[in-house]
């Protein structure tokens, strides 16, 4: 289906909550506000004309100098017509809560746990939100931009050569 059809469809249904639609990248990229993200993804999955029934991936991102710094990015795929779409939503650092989509896609379970582990974004309604790749007692969120790659308390590694 054409991008214009998608854009029309989404605009008709979610007029107030779409912040930005971008067709300059390799696939249509839509930024929505976080309260409606579940409805947007459910609409994309269940509407018979759109049919985005495959969740390709879900990841987080952190833009420290924006008003809404933490983001979640979803890639959906209509495997019957080979059409992809990217949905983004952004939240604040004080209230990083996004509704979960594990009821729509079982694949989102571990992907949301990984995003929570790396960025601290809390997915409301997730059955078992705990860290998945890091240790449980880690008290910070490593992928956020303020955390350095290397351990800053080490004396033996010279920062001129490592972790530029």
């Amino acid at each position: 289906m054409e991008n214009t059809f998608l854009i029309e469809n989404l605009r008709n249904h979610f007029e107030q909550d779409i912040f930005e639609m971008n067709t300059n990248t390799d696939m249509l990229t839509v930024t929505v506000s976080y309260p409606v993200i579940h409805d947007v993804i459910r609409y994309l999955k269940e509407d018979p004309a759109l049919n985005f029934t495959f969740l390709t991936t879900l990841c987080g991102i952190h833009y420290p100098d924006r008003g809404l710094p933490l983001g979640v990015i979803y890639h959906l795929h209509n495997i019957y017509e080979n059409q992809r779409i990217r949905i983004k939503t952004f939240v604040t650092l004080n209230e990083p809560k996004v509704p979960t989509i594990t009821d729509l896609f079982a694949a989102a379970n571990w992907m949301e746990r990984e995003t929570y582990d790396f960025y601290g974004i809390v997915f409301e309604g997730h059955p078992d939100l705990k860290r998945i790749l890091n240790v449980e007692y880690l008290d910070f969120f490593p992928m956020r931009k303020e955390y350095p790659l290397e351990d800053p308390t080490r004396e033996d590694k010279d920062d001129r050569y490592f972790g530029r």
Partner: protein
Amino acid sequence: MSNGKEYTTLNLGPTHPAMHGIFQNVLTIDGEKIVDSEQTIGYIHRAFEKIAERRPYYQITTLTDRLNYCSAPINNIGWHMTMEKLLGVKTTRRIDYMRIILMELARITDHLICNSVIGVDSGALTGFVYVFQERERVYEIYEEVSGARLTTNMGRIGGFERDFSPAAIRKLRDFLNHLPKVLHEFEKLLLRNRIFMDRTINVGPITAEKALNYGFSGPNLRAAGVDLDIRVINPYSSYNDFDFIIPVGTNGDTYDRFCVRQEEIWQSLKIIRNALENLPAGNFHVNVPEFYLPPKEEVYSKMEALIWHFKIVMGETAVPAGEVYHSVEAANGELGFYLVSDGGRSPYRLHFRRPCFIYYQALPEMIRGGVLSDAILTMSSMNVIAGELDG
């Protein structure tokens, strides 16, 4: 328990010979039947996504090597293709065919490991030993092409670092002549073996709808009956020039996964033969001066080459800002790279869509109701590689 029964908790611990890699399964067992299980992963988490934010673009290839380390060329070439998509570089057909040969070789080796390890987990170690000798031959081919055996760091943005040498072509032809005999012997051992079939049919099944909902892709999804293959629906690197069948199973059980992978090895052999016979003439790289190291003779004699060499090695070349998602059909499924660039020397955000991580969460559902030995076979038939699971 609420129904009056008492369940046992069995820890199939992280360092267990039957776990192919390091991940833990805590099983709740009722007698012999598995009621529930919980996975703990992350023992080999190396923070690739964080490291990638500090490395220049051509140094990230070494990180991608270590994702699915059984088929490293596919990861490398997938990353180079992502960069080429961001930069808008188009490769020639010769480069595409060379890439296809290496990617299909990697796919063959990964499927060989997976299938022989299913045999090992059911007690048949002989097939594994026979088949690994063939993997040794492929290591020699990788060594001719890129210099390394396992973590190959193969290719460059825009092509390859050197052309296929005559020795590489000879080894490739020897491999293509030799592998069918070994595969036939391996199949005689396992494919229609009564004991193997009894142990693998209806073990660990999954339906097509559930598999799609869990984000399955690759041979695990095709064994459940869905013929989704990225090489066909979204052909990259001139795959549309080649004619190959997508094998599809019916039940989604362990036997179907074994058979799908076995047939994919035969199809990959066909593709490699085709690509080798029709390899077009041309150069082994396109002109991408910002990322492709110039030849050393020019660096010592010409000024522009010296400057490009310096800039590339110090990682000071500019990249257009933007975001791109590219995926390839790796041996386990759709391996995707989501790259967000802000115009700097390293990615702003790089996310690997790792197929193993996504389909491993379906394991509790697949092993529920079976016995422990069925769980081991299901795990090994799903081809869980720890490097790709944790990243």
